[in-house]
């Protein structure tokens, strides 16, 4: 069972208290963008076996969205952080590097 710490209300929430919101750090391409960019925004996902960044909503709790870094292979959680950011904070990157040296995910390392 997956347990994620909600950075918005401080609760360690069980998976069943949460709602999965898909991949994190998507760049939203709107009017004026190319077809390829819009396609990427809509459909292209990493879907890795390993280090992954996701959006989660504490749906039965505070109702807020937050982001999580975890391993899809082992269910190990590297950390959670507020959604108001364009990239994972350094302490999250460091936590991943400690366990998965050399990890790469999209443009982040």
């Amino acid at each position, binding site marked *: 069972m997956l347990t994620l710490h909600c950075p*918005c*209300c*401080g*609760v*360690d*929430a*069980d998976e*069943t*208290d949460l709602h999965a919101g898909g991949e994190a750090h998507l760049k939203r391409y709107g009017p004026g963008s190319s077809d390829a960019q819009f396609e990427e925004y809509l459909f292209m996902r990493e879907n890795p076996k390993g280090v992954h960044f996701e959006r989660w909503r504490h749906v*039965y*709790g*505070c*109702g*807020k969205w937050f982001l999580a870094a975890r391993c899809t292979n082992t269910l190990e959680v590297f950390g959670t952080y507020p959604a108001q950011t364009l990239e994972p904070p350094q302490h999250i990157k460091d936590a991943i590097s400690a366990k998965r040296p050399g990890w790469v995910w999209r443009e982040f390392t």
Partner: protein
Amino acid sequence: MSNAVSALQARVASGEVTIREDGLRGMIILRGDLASKKLRNVCKTVTGVAVPAQGQADVTGDKGLCWMSPDELLVLVPYAEVDEALAAIDKALDGEHYLAENVSDARALIHVEGAFAREVMAKLAPVDLHPDSFKPGDFRRTRLAQAAAAFWMRDEDTFEVICFRSVAEYVFGLLAQSAKEGPVGYFAKT
């Protein structure tokens, strides 16, 4: 005006742990900046208690405040005083970005009282309810089996549970069944 009644009209399931629907209670959802001085002051005026810290509730008798999220409080007052409380909040927060709504008739309040109340709750919620982890004053929004609920402890043997009115029958049934099946002994006082 029709006669207001609570969801289960004070139904009771008696036992070693008693489940009791608490009847009508004034409840106001208040969203806004919890750091706002005006908001904090009017909350204190209306309920008599200060805005609780994250994850906490401060409820005495029929009045109190529950921390729902970083921008939301649940204001509890006697049912008869809810219009007055709402008017006071609207007056105090005029000009601020906020939302205050009377949700009294959209909710139900259920008491769980007795020696193993903790276990009656723990069987139904994905929450660490060990006496060292969850204490009187702590507040939690989560689910009870399949329905959303929030609860806090009035004292060591009493939980107060809030759920949507539409699932009050279901939640009461869950709690009554959990109580009827008896203690697990996991949190047994040694």
